[in-house]
């Protein structure tokens, strides 16, 4: 017979599920949980400086490893602060388990100090959520949370635990079992044969890989299928790394900031094999005009994504990796000389143009240079903005989970804490966080956490003294009326970083930027690298929001951008 309180039950179960790191911040309503955590022999706690930072650290751990990660926050403002990171995890299908303290049950509904309706607020931004009403319930709720977060399409789960439940004593005979995950499979052998027949019969097929490839660990299966049948392969932002970008069949990322040729290949394709992707509007542009001549085979674990935005002729609902493996023997070995020649022609006529790729003080040059300094084991996190798109375009991603980026929600402030989380999960690896001067200020307090944990993290701030993508849209679509997008106060990021106790260099003042950049990245421990960038450096090509993907602005061959 075991006897312990609700907080101890929670911590014991988290240990049982293999959790070794929890990011969070304590407060009045979760102190019993923290007291129990202090007695854990296997879980270390990472004290964040803002609950949103804690949420993104958990995301960084989960994204970099594929395993569920846990974050803690107290009631009220602790909970509201962490919600953005949870919403971000929902849109990118990341298995994060967020445990919040709540005021005692007797005070719920009385507008008590630090009381908000965390349960109600988290319904639309979680895969599932719980308000726990007794310590005994924790014995089923915690295992259920792990099952739900990782089963099928992954996603965040929030568990709100009132303080009296944390303190309530419970006795139980047997420790709860780890729940098995159910396997979703909703297709027949006939569906598979029909899909293979369509692939074999297609003249201009494209394989279109999304973040589901990472979740399903289906990268090799996707590459094998592409190679056997000679399928040109494009990737979404979250799909980057599913196929090495220098693979002969790889196209670039598709959509709003794709290389011109990639969007033009999509325009000509007659069959789309979509695997673990959901036709996001940043990828498809105007959906009614996306791949107008293509039939669709949609492979996804989430039945709700199939036929949601684009009708599929063949629907394969199940594990993407398993389905791709089952398709492999059914597709013919092909060379597709004619289609691949056409793709090569489009690529040479409408290539991706990378201005100043040799200059480490310019966006593409800086990104390419850093990629040369680190190896493919390095983890690349980004914030949100121009720097994110430049990295997506120019960094040579070659493996799954190499890129950690906020795709669906597009949360500025994601990069630094997510990078810290990744570094905590993979301490032997170098982690690079590309950020901008807008994004870094949204969670800059986590520099303190980075220094405290001595993570091997290099924060590269591309400082264009503006909200660059906003400014770019004002330039292109709002008559160059730059409003609220240019910062008048220029922040000294190097001094700020040093104030946090962090090493910092300013490449803009460097006599030998390449040598200084190399030394800063190779030196162990956290470091901020500041790089001034002109406001007028834009992200091209660009598809205007709401336009079809073939209506691209800028990025032409032999053009001055």
């Amino acid at each position: 017979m075991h006897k312990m309180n609700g907080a101890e039950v929670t911590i014991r179960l988290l240990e049982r599920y293999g959790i070794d790191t929890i990011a969070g911040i304590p407060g009045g309503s979760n102190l019993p949980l923290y007291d129990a955590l202090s007695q854990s022999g296997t879980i270390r706690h990472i004290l964040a400086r803002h609950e949103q930072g804690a949420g993104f650290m958990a995301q960084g751990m989960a994204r970099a490893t594929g395993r569920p990660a846990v974050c803690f926050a107290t009631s009220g403002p602790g909970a509201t602060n962490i919600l953005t990171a949870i919403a971000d995890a929902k849109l990118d299908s990341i298995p994060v388990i967020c445990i919040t303290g709540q005021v005692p049950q007797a005070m719920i509904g009385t507008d008590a100090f630090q009381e908000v309706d965390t349960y109600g607020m988290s319904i639309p931004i979680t895969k599932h959520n719980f308000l726990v009403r007794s310590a005994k319930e924790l014995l089923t709720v915690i295992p259920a949370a792990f099952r739900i977060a990782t089963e099928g399409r992954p996603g965040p789960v929030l568990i709100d635990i009132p303080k009296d439940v944390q303190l309530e004593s419970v006795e139980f005979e047997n420790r709860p079992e780890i729940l098995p995950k159910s396997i979703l499979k909703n297709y027949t052998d006939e569906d598979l044969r029909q899909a293979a027949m369509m692939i074999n019969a297609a003249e201009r097929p494209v394989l279109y890989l999304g973040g589901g490839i990472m979740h399903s660990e289906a990268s090799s299966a996707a590459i094998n299928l592409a190679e056997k049948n000679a399928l040109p392969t494009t990737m979404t932002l979250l799909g980057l790394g599913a196929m090495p970008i220098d693979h002969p069949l790889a196209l670039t990322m598709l959509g709003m900031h794709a290389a011109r040729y990639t969007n033009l290949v999509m325009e000509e394709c007659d069959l789309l094999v979509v695997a673990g992707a959901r036709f996001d509007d940043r990828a498809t542009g105007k959906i009614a005009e996306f791949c107008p001549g293509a039939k669709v085979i949609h492979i996804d674990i989430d039945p709700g994504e199939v036929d949601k935005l684009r009708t599929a002729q063949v629907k394969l609902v199940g594990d993407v990796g398993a389905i791709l493996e089952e398709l492999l023997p059914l597709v013919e070995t092909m060379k597709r000389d004619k289609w691949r020649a056409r793709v090569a022609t489009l690529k040479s006529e409408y290539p991706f143009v990378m201005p100043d790729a040799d200059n480490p003080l310019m966006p593409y040059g800086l990104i390419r240079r850093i990629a040369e300094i680190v190896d493919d084991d390095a983890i690349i996190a980004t914030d949100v903005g121009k720097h994110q798109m430049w990295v997506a375009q120019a960094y040579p991603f070659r493996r799954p989970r190499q890129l950690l980026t906020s795709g669906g929600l597009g949360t500025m402030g994601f990069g630094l804490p997510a990078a810290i989380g990744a570094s905590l999960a993979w301490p032997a690896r170098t982690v690079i966080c590309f950020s901008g001067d807008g994004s870094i200020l949204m969670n800059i307090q986590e520099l303190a956490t980075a220094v405290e944990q001595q993570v091997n993290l290099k924060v590269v701030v591309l400082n264009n003294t503006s909200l660059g993508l906003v400014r770019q849209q004002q330039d292109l679509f709002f008559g160059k009326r730059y409003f609220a997008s240019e910062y008048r106060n220029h922040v000294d990021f190097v001094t700020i970083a040093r104030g946090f106790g962090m090493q910092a260099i300013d490449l803009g003042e460097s006599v030998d930027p390449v040598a200084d950049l190399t030394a800063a990245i190779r030196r162990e421990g956290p470091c901020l690298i500041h790089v001034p960038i002109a406001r007028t450096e834009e992200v091209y090509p660009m598809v205007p929001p709401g336009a079809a993907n073939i209506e691209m602005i800028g990025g032409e061959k032999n053009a001055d951008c």
Partner: protein
Amino acid sequence: MQTVESKLVTAGDNRNKAVLELTVNNHPGVMSHICGLFSRRVYNMEGILCMPIDDGRLSRVWIRVTGNGQLEQIAKQLRKLEDVQTVRYHEAEHEVFVQLEDYFRVS
């Protein structure tokens, strides 16, 4: 459990109705999960009824929607909710709402 009606059917409105019949876990948050799904995905809910069944362990939920081609997608999204056990749909009006119409008239 209470009855919630999000939008009254106006007299003479005979657009093709459909009715969803759900079996769900009975707990205080389940109605929020269902109604929240309809509002955030902009599905048109015309009426909803919910009563406990099975000694209060489960609830039966009836939802009237205007059939606008979204029915299959609504059913898929409902099935993804952890507390929803079964979803059936009737592609027509159902007597459960017809019998109630006397209680939903202006004066």
